[in-house]
């Protein structure tokens, strides 16, 4: 093609740009007040379904190994001496606190 095509192609590009701007100018808009209100509502209505926001209890967290808990000691009413099997003492009594960090509860607005 000759030199004439060079200015023509920039014309073609400019025409395309104008056509695109006309399309974007004609888009139907809604008021920011309505758009913002709907965004806010969506966040608040779905907050309870957002695990990163509400926090995940360890028992429901697929990424944390389940904790093994022993059954608690039942109170002894009979005064006669009864041998106690120490294996049934709850872990929290003979261990210095849990090795896993407790999860922080998040407040949501």
């Amino acid at each position: 093609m000759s030199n004439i095509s060079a200015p023509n192609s920039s014309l073609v590009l400019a025409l395309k740009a104008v056509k695109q701007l006309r399309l974007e100018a004609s888009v139907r808009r809604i008021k920011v007040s309505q758009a913002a209100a709907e965004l806010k509502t969506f966040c608040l209505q779905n907050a309870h379904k957002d695990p990163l926001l509400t926090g995940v209890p360890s028992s429901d967290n697929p990424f944390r190994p389940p904790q093994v808990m022993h059954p608690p000691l039942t109170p002894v009413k009979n005064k006669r001496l009864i041998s106690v099997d120490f294996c049934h003492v709850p872990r929290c009594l003979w261990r210095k606190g849990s090795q896993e960090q407790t999860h922080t509860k998040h407040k949501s607005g």
Partner: protein
Amino acid sequence: MGEMEELRKEMENLKDQITAARKTFQDSTLQEAAAGVTVVGRVQLKTRKTLRGHLAKIYAMHWGTDSTLCVSASQDGKLIVWDTITTNKVNAIPLKSSWVMTCAYAPSGNLVACGGLDNMCSIYNLKGKDGNVKVMRELAAHTGYLSCCRFLSDTEIITSSGDCTCVLWDIETGTQKTVFAGHQGDAMSLGVSPDFKFFISGACDFTAKLWDIREAECRQTFGGHESDINAIGFFPNGNAVITGSDDATCKLYDLRADQELLTYQDSSIMCGVTSLAPSKSGRLLLAGHDDFNVNIWDMLKAERVGVLAGHDNRVSCIGVSTDGMACCTGSWDSFLKIWN
């Protein structure tokens, strides 16, 4: 050259028209609408899993729709599909080109894709008959690097490229269905709308564009950033777009009001945003930065409510699982971490 001058004048007029039209719909702000909402309390997520195995910088990751598997791409030349709960590697796929910049998991779970400086998007079938993962298609036509790719289905994928275009491909035939041209700089990132009808792209021309996939046209362009947009994503309801830029800020644009609603910035944050992901309700915005951290923002109040510090190098990619249960970060330190 009278015609060019006239066209330039018309372009300026139309741009002024758009600015004016947006202003007339700006009867309020998101700050005002959210004035009665209390800021989210401090968000402290903990690393629950560390996925070790890559031998070089991780450039991209993408969750599968089952919220358990994810795929990561590293410049060690591997795509790894991880079971994030057991931390096992389900697949370790060697790549022809190690200069990978993006990866994607198909919604069906059957395919993964990746690409980078080879200018191609390679599709891998994870569910091949003999159990081996093989290249199913190599989508070649871009004249620049592949910066991002996202599946619409097992038969269609959208790519963004350093050649300034985005392309919709037919995977079965390996051909381009639609070329989305319009950006004046490298297209760096893309996101698909929840209803799969639209996609958004962020580019080095500092703008984000909304594209109608079937009508094959750009519907809206959003400016305001002062540098390259590296990361982009849809707000969960599909009505707003979030962008992250080298100018160290993130912005929220509403699609129906056709304008910016909020900027997420802090004078103490000086490093560019590399990646972003909203939480399931959209209330939290997680943004990965060049300074090795992930900042967590309250999206309605534009206040920083948390930081994820755990990587020893740039956070290059981030994703929140489909069920919202966890966030995954990938870094140049070669590790992926699962947080919640």
